[in-house]
């Protein structure tokens, strides 16, 4: 069992590895990777029951990264957890690497479904949770979406179904960093506030600071499930979290740091743990 401080240190390490891989590959979605890293770290190292040596164990908990463009953050987490060799991160986006820009379940152990087009993960999560419910099994399903992604209508189809089916074994985490690819949500198709909308659809909703490890772990714990209701965690996050010039800056959706920016970003992340 890791302490919140252990988890923070690990998340910082994951951010650093992610940053380096983006710099070396010359591509990636660093803004959204930094915003989702704390949530992924808490899931894989505190909450979920998974077996890296047996990635398709029938009773494992499932994680669907619906915001598939932040695959690199998932790869680094999977490598830290032991699903793939840590040195493989260096192959990200390289010719014939299995670490594609979007995750592939057939190639990468630990990946549950091939995401990329937005609005796909939650319907799949509903199906997973329904399977567990039918079998009377206690494994849980977690889906992470971006907030811009909630503009996809398929998510709302799934939100209706999850409430109708009383899938209290399903947890949706919305990475609410308020920025989509080219502009703030507020200037595009503003869904905020998200919580009352999910509540209106019959979900149990909790709002947290998506970078506060204690809050993340508490919200994800099985003890906070409301019987008969799917759960939505609206995680208030910052795109580019941990790196001052990227943080909350729409320009860093998929921008790649130059060498000077890379050094500064790395120094900031290292400094945060000093």
């Amino acid at each position, binding site marked *: 069992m890791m302490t919140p401080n252990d988890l923070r240190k690990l998340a910082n390490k994951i951010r650093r590895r992610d940053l380096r891989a983006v710099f070396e590959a010359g591509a990636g979605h660093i803004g959204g990777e930094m915003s989702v890293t704390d949530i992924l770290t808490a899931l894989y190292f505190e909450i979920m029951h998974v077996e890296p040596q047996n990635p398709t164990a*029938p009773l494992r908990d*499932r994680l669907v990264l619906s915001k598939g463009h932040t695959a690199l953050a998932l790869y680094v987490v999977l490598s830290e957890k032991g699903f793939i060799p840590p040195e493989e991160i260096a192959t990200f986006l390289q010719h014939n690497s299995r670490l594609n820009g979007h995750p*592939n*379940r*057939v190639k990468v152990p630990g990946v*549950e*479904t*091939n*995401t*990329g*087009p937005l*609005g*796909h993960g*939650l*319907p*799949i*999560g*509903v*199906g*997973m*949770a*329904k*399977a*567990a419910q*039918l*079998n009377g099994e206690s494994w849980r*399903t977690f889906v992470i979406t971006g907030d811009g992604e909630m503009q996809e*209508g*398929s998510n709302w*189809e*799934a939100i*209706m*179904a999850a409430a*109708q*089916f009383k899938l209290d074994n399903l947890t949706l985490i919305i990475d609410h960093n308020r920025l989509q690819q080219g502009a703030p949500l507020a200037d595009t198709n503003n869904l905020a506030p998200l919580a009352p909308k999910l509540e209106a659809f019959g979900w149990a909703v909790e709002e947290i600071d998506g970078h506060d490890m204690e809050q993340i772990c508490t919200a994800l714990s099985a003890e906070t499930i409301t019987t008969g209701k799917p759960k939505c965690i609206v995680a208030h996050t910052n795109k580019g979290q941990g790196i001052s010039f990227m943080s909350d800056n729409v320009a860093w959706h998929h921008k790649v740091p130059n060498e000077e920016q890379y050094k500064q970003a790395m120094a900031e992340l290292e400094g945060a743990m000093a």
Partner: protein
Amino acid sequence: MSNPFEGAKLHDCRDAFTAVLESLGAENTDIVAVCNDSVGSSKLGGFRDKFPERLINVGIAEQNMVGVGAGLANGGKIPFVCAASPFLTGRALEQIKADVAYSETNVKLVGISSGMAYGELGPTHHSIEDFAWIRALPNVPVVAPADRIETATVIKWAAAYQGGCYLRLSRVGVPDLLPEDHVFELGKADQLRAGGDLTLIANGVLTHRALIAAELLAASGINARVLNMASVRPIDEAAIVAAATETGAILTCEEHTTFGGLGSAVAEVVVEQAPVPMMRLGVPGVFAHTASANALLDDFGMSPEAIAESAQALLKRKG
């Protein structure tokens, strides 16, 4: 003799589908049905009554329906995802691509009332693009059975097959065409009639019409081979090449646009492996006018008589 099926009882293939699904469901609790408020049109009422928990009706939400199917498969279930073909394949095409084909999930996509079965309801409810759309995707076999016997064996095959597939069923009545002990084999055509002058290749409700056309041709002294090509992808290349080399001309008939369907799939094999004169009958790249399902097929040149006339015209091009 012009119509060998004169007076034969016509059957709705959906009944064979649900009868087999219910019997498989009794043997295997992992078999579930997923639908989009289509319990009636998919004829899932019996399945629901027998296994209420295993009938998962997501409401009118096809994208979610296919995603839920993929998630159920991830959880070890064998989902039969059933909906009217146009909405299953058209509305949820990206889910079929990403969540079923690319993710290689064990989802059985069952398109009901396919082709122009909805007749007068018009082109929004017709599904004459689905062969082209789904055939373009890796990992998803495309199968269109011709009668209730083939439908039953295809459903059994699908349940046992490890992987996704698209099964294209009609609701237009057809008589029994295949032998009762027929067993479907993926990628394998069935020769329903021997002949050496040309080959008619059809599937779905067109197989019935092609067989009648072959009898009409026989009355004119023309011996047509008839291949039932339920499996559109993978397609039986050997049977197509044999038809080309042994009969010298191929006429395809399908309840689909002529852009990218069965005729195109056959032509791809013919042009690369055994070029011979070909003609492709289908819907000629237009949205259909108002007419019943069978009248539309007649109007688009696929009455048995018109198929026979096309065959005669094709024979004139044979070297």
